[in-house]
């Protein structure tokens, strides 16, 4: 990555929520870029800010600070026409297809919604596009007449995907797109996402806590902890040789693909701390198995490139020469 101009660029994105008198830093200075046709996965435990980041990209929520650029254009400066284009270009698939499809709407209208809202098309043209989108996700055109409750979970998610595809978006934000589905259906849906990406050349931003999905789909991975990215880089590198102690623990917690594979568990102690009062210094230090001294308790490490770790950047004092001691 880095060679082509990025499609999506997120810079120092920050979102604070006020909870009573306290402040939750749900997203705290997150930066990344996604090239056209690339897939970035945001990974972390619940409460790490990955879903908030996704909502900010989708403009369902306003950032406290920082900027999001699509094609180099700042989203805050979009005019009406620009916003309309944005709604065509960026679409989403949500986690739970029981909640993301309006139970009182026929599939036809659900799938056509983006076109209905943003383009003036005739009925015939609309029907043609709905047919094409349903076919692309492996449903039959006559499913358009049905209501969502007439479908199974996997089919519902296909309807959701068809509705996201219809405007030929360039970026799809996938919020845990398979975690609400039966295990037997997941691989089908993941394959569908891969095929669609190959066919239409979209970029994906995937929010996931499930590393299996991530490994299969993502080119880049950004591991988040309490609102910040702790490690970001190419997916293969991170899975082969994780650098940040949190990433290591996260990978170790995942089950091995074969039960006989040696599997040394490095279990994390304790719960994820309250985001209302994140620990000072490195947020991870109270649970960190590689805690190296007072510097962890006082300074938040920068997200910097690490020697011998390729294109990766890691936020950990372990890899700062000066810090060791």
């Amino acid at each position: 990555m880095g060679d082509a101009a990025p499609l999506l660029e997120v810079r120092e994105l920050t979102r604070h929520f006020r909870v009573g008198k306290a402040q939750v830093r749900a997203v705290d200075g997150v930066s990344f870029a996604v090239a056209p046709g690339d897939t970035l996965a945001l990974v972390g435990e619940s409460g790490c800010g990955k879903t908030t980041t996704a909502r900010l990209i989708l403009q369902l929520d306003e950032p406290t600070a920082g900027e999001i650029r699509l094609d180099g254009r700042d989203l805050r400066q979009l005019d009406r026409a620009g916003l309309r284009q944005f709604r065509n270009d960026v679409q989403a698939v949500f986690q739970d297809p029981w909640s993301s499809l309006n139970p009182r709407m026929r599939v036809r209208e659900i799938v056509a919604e983006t076109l209905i809202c943003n383009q003036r098309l005739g009925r015939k043209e609309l029907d043609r596009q709905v047919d094409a989108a349903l076919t692309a996700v492996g449903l039959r055109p006559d499913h358009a007449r049905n209501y969502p409750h007439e479908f199974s979970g996997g089919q519902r998610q296909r309807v959701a995907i068809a509705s996201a595809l219809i405007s030929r978006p360039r970026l799809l934000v996938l919020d845990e797109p398979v975690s609400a589905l039966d295990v037997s259906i997941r691989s089908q849906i993941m394959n569908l996402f891969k095929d669609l990406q190959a066919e239409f050349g979209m970029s994906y931003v995937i929010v996931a806590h499930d590393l299996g999905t991530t490994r299969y789909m993502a080119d880049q991975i950004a591991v988040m902890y309490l609102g910040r990215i702790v490690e970001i880089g190419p997916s293969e590198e991170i899975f082969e040789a994780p650098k940040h102690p949190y990433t290591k623990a996260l990978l170790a917690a995942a089950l091995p693909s074969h039960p006989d594979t040696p599997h040394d568990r490095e279990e994390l102690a304790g719960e994820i701390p309250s985001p209302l009062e994140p620990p000072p210094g490195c947020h991870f230090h109270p649970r960190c198995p590689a805690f190296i001294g007072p510097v962890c308790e006082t300074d938040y490490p920068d997200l910097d490139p690490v020697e011998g770790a390729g294109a990766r950047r890691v936020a950990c004092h372990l890899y700062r020469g000066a810090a060791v001691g």
Partner: protein
Amino acid sequence: MPPPAGGVARGSGRSFGLASRYPLVPITILMIVLVIPSFFADLIAPHDPYAASVPNRLEPPVFAGGTWEFPLGTDRLGRDILSRTIHGAKYALSISLVGIFLGTILGTAVGLAAGYFRGWTDRIVMRVVDVSFALPSILLALALAAAFGSSFEGVIFVVVFVLWSYFARQVRGEVLSLRERDFVARARVAGAGHGRIIFRHILPNVMNTVIVLATLQIGVVIILEASLSFLGIGIPRPTPAWGLLVADGRALVVSAWWVSLIPGLAILLTVLSVNLFGDWLRDRLDPKLRQR
């Protein structure tokens, strides 16, 4: 529509066995007591409801020793109670339909706005709802009657005033949870504006609740109208509204019990049937039962 074989027994508290699972009985009673009389009162009623006939005053009903001339007896002025009760259905039905129609629209619109926009809209609306819950409807009716005299419009006004807050509160609650559902987020991602989200996504999902609530309110409205008329602050005399008919027999309960009993029975049967029908409708339309 018949219930599924072996019908899902649902502990709804108010269960009248067969009647609550199978709405034919309440619907039949409603047709006989309320709907047919209100549309065809002039054809069915054996006498003019206003015609007094002093020689025939306080005739008992036929089953208590009266004649077939006045099957359900006569009142103090010799007016036929059957005819008056039949004509009374017109007022019960028209007031509940008009009142509920207006109250439902007003309450639903306000509830949608409060739940969807939240913030100060919501705060103001909910304070007004609180006030309107706290204000006794009888007192309001008394004030209105004192200021403008009792009238049909006055009764409608009181009905709307009492009803809208129920709808507003119920709809607001549902909208608050609906607006957080993913399909609303998806609609926003698709570029839908507030109007489309409210009317295409949220309103259709609260319609069932609104319909069931409106049906269940028919009983409340009929009782309210009867109470107002009974107190003399509802429909003006000598209109044969049910509440007035009951009031007419108040002083005679011991000697001529039928004067109050017959219209009272009409009220009882109507309200009971409407509630049974409403319960059945709620079970039918409950999206939680129909989905998944």
